[in-house]
């Protein structure tokens, strides 16, 4: 298929959409979370209901990706009114359809947040949960059917790929990404444009693009939602990257724990190949690019790029020292570009709207938006996307609706086992790379766990240390033995048996492991410990046995 | 100069360190000029009086050792962990890889040489083994360590001689550091 054919298809689809015979569109959230709470059953029931009422020609029922407020699922959205219903019980479906479609008024008691707000917002877009958000990476999640490439095409899908192939040189694409000031969303925040440029500059017969979807932080599900809700967006980002750096082969490494994401991404690859958007001579140009899915097998360390490469090569996922960086010598020793799912999801909007547009969102040093997985002792947990620099307070109290049972906020953990905690006195911290580092935490991939007074910070540190201990690959000494030693010492303190000497040993080991470990896992494993020591030292002191 | 008081104690060890102490041979006379040995398995003193220096051989393996080391710490100005067992449990600690119960079973119930009765001795006057053997430093503050299994007589004499002259020894600088 060439460019003209694609335009024809898009035109046809758009015309169909514009002459929409449907008066209504009902989106049913089919993200993994809502499926777990029964949305497939809801979907089936809804379709039956529509059929019984003879409304098939007026109402379109669409299964979509994640809508956001995951703990209120299953969710159902009526368009164009934008009424969202929560916690759908199959027995209510008939009543809802009757009220929405026939009586033209929503059932307020069943709307989103009806049970926790004084009065629910009829138009969910007005609800602070959505109003404070800005969706770029998640733009079409929750609106389109992720299993239909046509849905994506109608929403400007593959326009960016078309644009770079016909109107831009690889250098121009890289310049655009550099101008956007996009930084790697996997956690470290390395400028994406520079990474692309480095890979571009190495001369090689073969280069690779890898999408890192091995989201291993406990409490994080941003990448999963993007892959499930809009797989084509990631695929398009990878293809653009392939064009820019000169790679013809891509790998998407997705966690084995995400079967739905794997299924949808594989389906997306198939559809794209069929449309000539992947494979040889994409859209009739000389650019060829294909993608293969590699399924992770349960190892957190495989999120580290050199370990991920080893895993794709079918080996133990152990990291190796850098340099050489993957940009120089990566997969099978070839120059390799590795970006995170969320980074790839940001590429096509940047190409479509320009790097300058993206760079103006967020803060001067951290441009754009960031997806967070909000969880813990908060009223509305789920998936959110906000401009960089939004304060923690806005996220917790405006978007998240405040603390569960109106308890006092104690701390928020960012960056999972590699990150740190932010105590209440820093609730007004701007969520961007630099501000979080200055508090001893990191942005990480976007897990955000909210804790109240019932959380014991020493136990939280122990929990994360246990995680790192179990996930350490065992190659280098500081991480292999150091995490075990720190875990044992933390356990001792948790058991109220620790002494001041143990605490001193712990602090010394933490700094040692951080500075000497081979890879980022060990290098950041002491972070939760160091940050809880920094902000909640008293809790440790209280646990310590005082010797006479 | 006032004569110092010196004690040597034998906890969970094989007494090899004390044998090595005797290997300082005639240099014991130099030590005797500077200190009185007030308690030791090789002399008659059985009580532990306040001392300037206590050399403690062996690891902490039982309730009795535990009480003893706390008492020694109170009585001694300078407490020296004497030999690999006291410093890092060494051979004494080799039972730590197993559960205590299995260790007892192997020694008393399942041993080929037992008298078929296979009873673990439990007389109240016997000391009670702790689940794990620990080095001295896990229980009390240790002021100096002489590793080695056993430490060389030269190393022992060097350390004693330095302490008796109120100097702080350095085994590494003196090229006398050794384990095993």
């Amino acid at each position, binding site marked *: 298929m060439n460019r003209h054919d694609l335009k024809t298809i898009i035109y046809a689809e758009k015309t169909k959409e514009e002459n929409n015979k449907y008066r209504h569109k009902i989106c049913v959230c089919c993200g993994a979370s809502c499926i777990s709470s029964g949305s497939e059953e809801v979907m089936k029931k809804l379709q039956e209901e529509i059929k019984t009422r003879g409304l098939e020609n007026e109402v379109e029922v669409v299964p979509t990706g994640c809508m956001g*407020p995951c703990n209120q699922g299953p969710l159902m959205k009526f368009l164009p009114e934008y009424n969202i219903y929560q916690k759908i019980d199959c027995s209510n479906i008939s009543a809802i359809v009757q009220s929405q479609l026939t009586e033209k008024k929503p059932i307020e008691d069943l709307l989103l947040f009806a049970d926790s707000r004084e009065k629910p917002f009829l138009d969910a877009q007005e609800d602070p949960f959505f109003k404070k958000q800005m969706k770029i990476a998640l733009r079409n999640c929750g609106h389109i059917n992720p299993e239909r490439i046509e849905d994506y095409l109608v929403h400007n899908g593959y326009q960016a790929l078309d644009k770079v192939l016909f109107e831009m040189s690889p250098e121009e694409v890289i310049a655009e990404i550099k101008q956007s000031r996009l930084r790697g969303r996997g956690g470290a925040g390395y400028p994406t444009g520079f990474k692309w440029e480095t890979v571009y500059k190495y001369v090689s017969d073969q280069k690779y693009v890898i999408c890192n979807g091995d989201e291993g*932080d406990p409490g994080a*599900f941003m990448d999963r939602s993007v892959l499930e809700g809009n797989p084509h967006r990631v695929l398009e980002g990878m293809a653009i990257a392939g064009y820019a750096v000169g790679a013809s082969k891509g790998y998407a490494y997705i966690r084995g724990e995400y079967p739905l994401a794997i299924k949808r991404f594989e389906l997306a690859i198939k559809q794209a190949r069929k449309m000539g958007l992947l494979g040889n001579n994409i859209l009739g140009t000389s650019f060829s690019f294909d993608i293969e899915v590699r*399924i992770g*097998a349960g190892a957190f360390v495989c999120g580290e790029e050199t370990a991920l490469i080893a895993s794709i090569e079918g080996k133990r*996922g152990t990291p190796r020292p850098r340099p050489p960086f993957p940009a120089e010598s990566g997969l099978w020793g070839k120059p390799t570009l590795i970006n995170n799912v969320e980074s790839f999801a940001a590429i096509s909007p940047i190409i479509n709207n320009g790097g300058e547009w993206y760079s103006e969102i967020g803060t001067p040093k951290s441009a754009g938006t960031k997806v967070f997985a909000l969880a813990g002792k908060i009223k509305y947990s789920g998936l959110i996307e906000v401009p960089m620099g939004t304060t923690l307070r806005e996220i917790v109290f405006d978007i998240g609706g405040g603390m569960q049972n109106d308890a006092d906020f104690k701390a928020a953990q960012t960056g999972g086992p590699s990150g740190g905690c932010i105590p209440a006195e820093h609730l007004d911290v701007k969520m961007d790379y630099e501000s979080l580092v200055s508090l001893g935490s990191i942005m990480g991939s976007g897990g955000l766990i909210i804790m109240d007074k019932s*959380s014991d910070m020493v136990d939280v540190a122990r929990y994360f240390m246990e995680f790192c201990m179990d996930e350490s690959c065992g190659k280098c000494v500081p991480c292999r033995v150091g995490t075990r030693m720190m875990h044992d010492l933390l356990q001792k303190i948790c058991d109220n048996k620790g002494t001041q000497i143990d605490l001193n040993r712990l602090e010394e080991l933490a700094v040692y492991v951080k500075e000497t470990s081979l890879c980022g896992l060990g290098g950041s494993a002491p972070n939760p410990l160091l940050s809880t020591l920094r902000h909640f030292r008293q809790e440790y002191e209280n646990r310590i046995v005082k010797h006479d | 100069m006032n004569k110092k008081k010196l004690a040597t104690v034998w906890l969970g060890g094989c007494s090899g360190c004390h044998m090595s102490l005797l290997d300082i041979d005639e240099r014991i006379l130099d030590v005797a000029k500077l200190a009185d040995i007030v308690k030791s398995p090789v002399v008659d003193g059985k009580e532990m009086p306040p001392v300037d220096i206590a050399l403690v051989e062996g690891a902490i393996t039982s309730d009795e050792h535990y009480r003893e080391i706390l008492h020694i710490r109170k009585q001694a100005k300078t407490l020296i962990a004497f030999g690999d067992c006291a410093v890092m449990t060494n051979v004494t600690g080799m039972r730590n890889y197993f559960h205590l119960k299995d260790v007892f079973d192997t020694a008393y119930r399942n041993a080929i040489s037992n008298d078929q009765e296979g009873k673990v001795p439990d007389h109240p006057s016997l000391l009670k083994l702790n689940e794990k053997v620990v080095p001295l430093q896990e229980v009390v503050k240790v002021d100096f360590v002489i590793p080695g299994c056993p430490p060389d007589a030269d190393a022992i004499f060097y350390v004693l001689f330095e302490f008796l002259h109120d100097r702080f020894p350095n085994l590494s600088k003196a090229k006398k550091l050794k384990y095993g």
Partner: protein
Amino acid sequence: MKSGTAVHTKELSKTDPRVKLIAAKMKKENYKPDALIEILHTAQNAYGYLPKEVLAYITKALHLPPSRVYSTVTFYHFFSLKSKGEHTCLVCTGTACYVKGAQAILNEIEKKLGLKAGQVSADDKLGVQVARCIGACGLAPAVVLDDEVQAKVSPDEIIKKINIKIGTV
């Protein structure tokens, strides 16, 4: 003595559909050693775990050193060398679930059923496992009972559900 796995094991039946599945996968991947993990996924899905004769079969077909295969299998927590039981109860201990009481669920399972995480009951009826995060944080605490996610469960509820599964009620 070492409790190991000898390399020489009984031959697999070529007519076993599961063997055919693995053979097809290896052929599709061109017997490339770098597809080892993909092939192991196929085998594990077919058998529920990785029996030693299956590992020996794959090792031979890919011409890999046995220790290289074994080292890869034991590195990844997804792969299991032991049967996981007829019914599986997977307790998520991700941060959100942990904060909301995953430990209480594990404690109750241990108390009522005598099984710790990673153990399989003597009659092979039930296996208990923990996951680091199943990504259903909004449903915390979550338990997966035979591929079915149980959202926001209490310890009592999950014990009841398990008992129904293993037929002790």
